[in-house]
């Protein structure tokens, strides 16, 4: 009796292989499932049915890929390589079955799942929005290793296959059909009959066309690979993200030779998988999963959101949530203050939804509501008006009297303590913070802020709402700057004081980007708006003993140059595009340039952890990665500290203090980090032990 896979033969003699992974919400290619597949193949090879159709009994999708958990730290490279080679044998057996085989795909079909589909003769997908196919491996610092890099190229040609594998991008059934990645995409009602007709009629198995195959020849590979390298370099540096480059090299070297490709997959993917980048990215993946699970246990299904404040933040929050299926009312003092928000919303929908039908539906859900009719119907109300305590207090008093008693009241403030805003409410415990970041459509993180007055149960409800609109919730304590702004600010200010000291802005930014930041701090400040930076800095400066850089004040106060939005800040912009000046080739930046910025950030992270702004180091890392873009391959600030060696990092900070003064004085939290580290090590060890059991069982056979 199988646990995960069930065979069923219908009256026509076709065998259906149902995949329904036990004890998991999604189908994953766990070692157990692989083992069962292995045994199932024995049976199929003996019984020789008329055809085989592989399908998932999970509602949400086909196969989500390999069991990433089993790839976490503790696996040795040899083990990984052995595992990959075993899967190669397994998928080769699927491919060699002497009768027609087909994967019937709905929902997500990712990584190892897609590689299995490639090993079959035919692929049929369900034609709807939930069907997504992708090779997300590069996002975990590896590339497809279950024969995917070989078979995808054989099926759809090197150009399309490489682009899919390099980007990690997901496509729907229609796009997949167009690429030739699947043979047919049909509505749900036609799936079964279509699958059967493929088995009955056995059309010629699709392979790449001769022109596509030409691109896989040695000369073409030598021509194409520099192109792929160039395109990849736009998104990821080789030093930081080796996987896509390794994939290009792997293909360039072995593209035409199947055996060599498979062999190279095994050695390369296992090398990447056990490397630091991949392990950090896998850790980030799990941090993200942890955030996704926050609030999942509460029964809160918000349908209607009311947003007060039609400015950029309020308008964009409203538009985003409407796009994600909520009914949203957007209020401002008068109808005319909503024009920008409505126009921007339509732009967003057009860009993201594309189909006219979906755009109309989203526009119908987003209701301009100058008179505030929506308050009484709202399950969540978010305030996003200008930062003025008294106005906010009045607004919440009026909202409180109109809202349903069970509705969440939230402020998007970034600088006013929740406790102050809640003053004067009948039920101050009802107020939480939902702090979105700009631009809302890009920034995944939302800080779910709780004040001392907040009912703790609301943190989970807040998180549930954030998940409902497909963002990542981070519960934080209401303290100045919360987590993200607080940690970001010393880093930004240090970058600007470097400019005060005469370091050119491009050099400052380059140092940060070389470290792995998605964008330099100076460019970031320009993009956010220097007036906003200065306002936040002024709020936080007295509290955290920050010095406000001269140049920042000059630009904002004297020259009214506010960054990208005014066409000039630290940089100059033409039509919204940054005009970067070349750094003088003679120029030698200070040796500790990057350290000065990063260590301010790390030190502030330690302070936040000590103060309990977030619950633990993992959530801090997750918050900083998803809230600021902090180099994911480094696994977050706390992880940077631990992996760099706690002692050494602390020492480095002391050296900076000697050189540059008190702003680098190590936070008192550093002394407690040893204990935290112990906990982490213990946790890691127990996880490893758990894994050893699983791998051990595998090894016994």
């Amino acid at each position, binding site marked *: 009796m199988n646990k995960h896979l069930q065979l069923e033969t219908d009256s026509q003699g076709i065998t259906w292989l149902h995949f329904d992974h036990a004890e998991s919400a999604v189908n994953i290619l766990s070692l157990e499932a692989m083992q069962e597949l292995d045994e199932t193949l024995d049976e199929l090879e003996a019984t020789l049915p008329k055809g085989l159709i592989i399908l998932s009994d999970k509602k949400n999708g086909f196969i989500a890929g390999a069991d990433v958990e089993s790839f976490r730290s503790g696996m040795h490279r040899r083990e990984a390589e052995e595992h990959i080679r075993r899967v190669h044998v397994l998928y080769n057996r699927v491919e060699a079955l002497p009768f027609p085989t087909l994967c019937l795909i709905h929902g997500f079909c990712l990584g190892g799942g897609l590689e299995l589909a490639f090993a079959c003769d035919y692929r049929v997908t369900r034609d709807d929005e939930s069907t997504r196919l992708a090779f997300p491996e590069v996002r975990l610092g590896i590339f497809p290793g279950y024969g995917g890099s070989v078979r995808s190229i054989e099926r759809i040609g090197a150009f399309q296959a490489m682009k899919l594998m390099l980007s990690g991008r997901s496509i729907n059934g229609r796009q997949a059909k167009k690429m030739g990645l699947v043979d047919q995409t049909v509505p749900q009602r036609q799936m079964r009959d279509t699958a059967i007709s493929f088995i009955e009629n056995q059309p010629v198995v699709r392979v790449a066309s001769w022109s596509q195959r030409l691109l896989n020849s040695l000369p073409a590979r030598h021509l194409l690979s520099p192109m792929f390298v160039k395109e990849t370099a736009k998104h990821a540096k080789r030093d930081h993200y080796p996987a896509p480059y390794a994939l290009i090299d792997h293909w360039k070297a072995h593209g035409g030779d199947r055996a060599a490709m498979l062999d190279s997959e095994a050695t390369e993917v296992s090398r990447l998988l056990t490397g630091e980048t991949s392990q950090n990215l896998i850790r980030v993946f799990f941090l993200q999963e942890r955030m996704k699970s926050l609030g999942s246990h509460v029964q809160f299904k918000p349908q209607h959101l009311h947003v007060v404040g039609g400015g950029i933040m309020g308008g964009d929050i409203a538009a985003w949530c409407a796009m994600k299926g909520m*009914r949203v*009312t957007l209020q401002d003092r008068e*109808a*005319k203050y*909503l*024009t*920008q*928000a*409505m*126009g*921007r*919303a*339509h732009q967003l929908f057009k860009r993201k939804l594309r189909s006219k039908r979906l755009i*109309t*539906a989203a*526009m*119908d*859900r987003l*209701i*301009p*509501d*100058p*008179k505030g*009719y*929506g308050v*009484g*119907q709202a399950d969540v109300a978010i305030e996003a008006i200008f930062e003025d305590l008294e106005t906010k207090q009045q607004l919440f008093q009026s909202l409180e009297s109109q809202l349903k008693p069970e509705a969440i009241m939230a402020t998007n403030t970034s600088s006013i303590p929740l406790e102050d805003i809640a003053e004067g409410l009948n039920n101050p415990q009802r107020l939480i913070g939902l702090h979105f970041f700009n631009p809302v459509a890009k920034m995944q993180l939302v800080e779910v802020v709780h004040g001392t007055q907040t009912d703790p149960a609301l943190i989970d409800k807040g998180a549930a709402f954030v998940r409902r609109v497909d963002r990542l919730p981070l519960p934080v304590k209401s303290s100045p700057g919360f987590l993200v702004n607080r940690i970001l600010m010393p880093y930004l200010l240090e970058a600007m004081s470097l400019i005060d000291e005469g370091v050119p802005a491009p050099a400052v930014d380059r140092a940060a980007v070389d470290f792995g930041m998605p964008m330099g701090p100076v460019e970031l400040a320009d993009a956010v708006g220097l007036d906003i930076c200065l306002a936040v800095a002024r709020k936080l400066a007295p509290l955290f003993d920050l010095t406000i850089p001269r140049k920042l004040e000059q630009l904002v106060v004297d020259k009214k140059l506010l960054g990208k939005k005014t066409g000039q800040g630290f940089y100059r912009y033409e039509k919204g595009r940054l005009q970067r000046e070349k750094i003088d080739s003679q120029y030698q930046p200070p040796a500790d340039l990057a350290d000065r910025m990063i260590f301010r950030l790390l030190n502030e992270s330690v302070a936040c952890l000590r103060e309990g702004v977030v619950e633990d180091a993992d959530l801090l890392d997750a918050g900083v990665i998803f809230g600021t873009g902090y180099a994911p391959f480094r696994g977050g600030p706390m992880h940077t500290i631990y992996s760099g060696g706690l002692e050494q990092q602390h020492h480095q900070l002391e050296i900076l203090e000697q050189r540059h003064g008190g702003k680098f004085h190590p936070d008192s939290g550093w002394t407690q980090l040893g204990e935290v580290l112990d906990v982490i090590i213990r946790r890691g060890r127990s996880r490893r032990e758990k894994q050893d059991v699983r791998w051990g069982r595998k090894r016994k056979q």
Partner: protein
Amino acid sequence: MSKKSTAARAVYVVDGSRTPFLKALGKPGDFRASDLAVGAGRPLLLRQPFGPEQLDEVILGCIAPGVDEANIARIVALRLGCGDKVPAWTVQRNCASGMQAVDSAALDISTGRANLVLAGGTEAMSHHPILLNQRMVAWLADWNRAKSFTARGRQLAALRPHHFQLIIALMRGLTDPLVGLSMGQTAEKLAWRFNIDRESMDRFALRSHQRLADAQDNGRLDEIEPIYNQAGQLFESDDGLRREGTLEKMAKLKPAFDRPVGRVTAGNSAQITDGAAMLLLASEEAVERHGLPVLGKVIDSHWSALDPSQMGLGPVHAMGQLLKRQKMQGEEIDYWEINEAFATQVLACQAAWQDKDYMQQEVGLDALPSPIPDDRLNVDGGAVGIGHPVGASGARLILHLLKTLQQNNAKRGIASLCIGGGQGGAMLLEAQS
């Protein structure tokens, strides 16, 4: 004392909203008919204490929904979030389609079939299509059948200029196909019959604009909800209003229908406009269950028909019969709304209303009703200034009449429209005291 309703159960108008009425500028406007109805319906439903899915049905009047808007009421119901289970249907009685929708809703409530009904009208006249003529359609069919090169060549050779003549649906819709007159020409006929001169028409039209301006300035049009186009541009008020109009300017306009000697001009006719008006109707049971505020009651309504070439007199027939059934003389009516399809047509109605012969012979009323006072008729302007989105106007008149009654602590009013094809519709309404 309340007048007796013919209804078995009382029919309440709970609330209503409309969009601003937007002048058609030759090319398709920013809003389709369903967009307009959604724009009016969303705020209306939002401020109710029940969810849209609790409606029993949605009824909309619309003469020419877009090609993607068949049974537009159902489309609007779904877009308003009523869910799969609220039925919806569309009615068409030309210029009175919006009133027909309210009448149909009232009937369903009075018979006990429904308790909560969303009813109204919508029209995007700027979206009325331009069609290929029949000969072109036939030619295209033949072209599709012609497969060989020579057959296709023969088809191409058969093309003539007349194949390319387009049909402007809006113009056809405003022309009576049986008597061969445009609506404007039927108005000219009334002007001729009742001796209404150009200056009276222009004066009436000017007053319509002035009254609308006054209503806008003094906040008497709070039933209008703002709408935004895709670029975020805001529309808040009826944009057909001409504040700077004068008699001299109006006198300069050329006749639009009977050239060169006619009297009806673009200035003293209703404007071609896009807009929607929506009302929420409820039974007593629903009013109590949800604790709904009440704007007024639908007491009775009547539909009449007459010579299509004098369709403008339809209100006289419908209102006359309605008063007769209600055993009223007219002085019980505090406010009147007669749709201003044409200035001359309303003036002709007022004249016929006091014409003993006409009332006796054509309407069948023995005694003359009391006159319709100017200061109680279309007090906040009419279609000449506001515009006449044909499917929506009936609902707009009902809604605004109830608002007028409420604002003036008045009791009773009649809303009426003339209907292309030779009909009239009238509805008797009472404010909730």
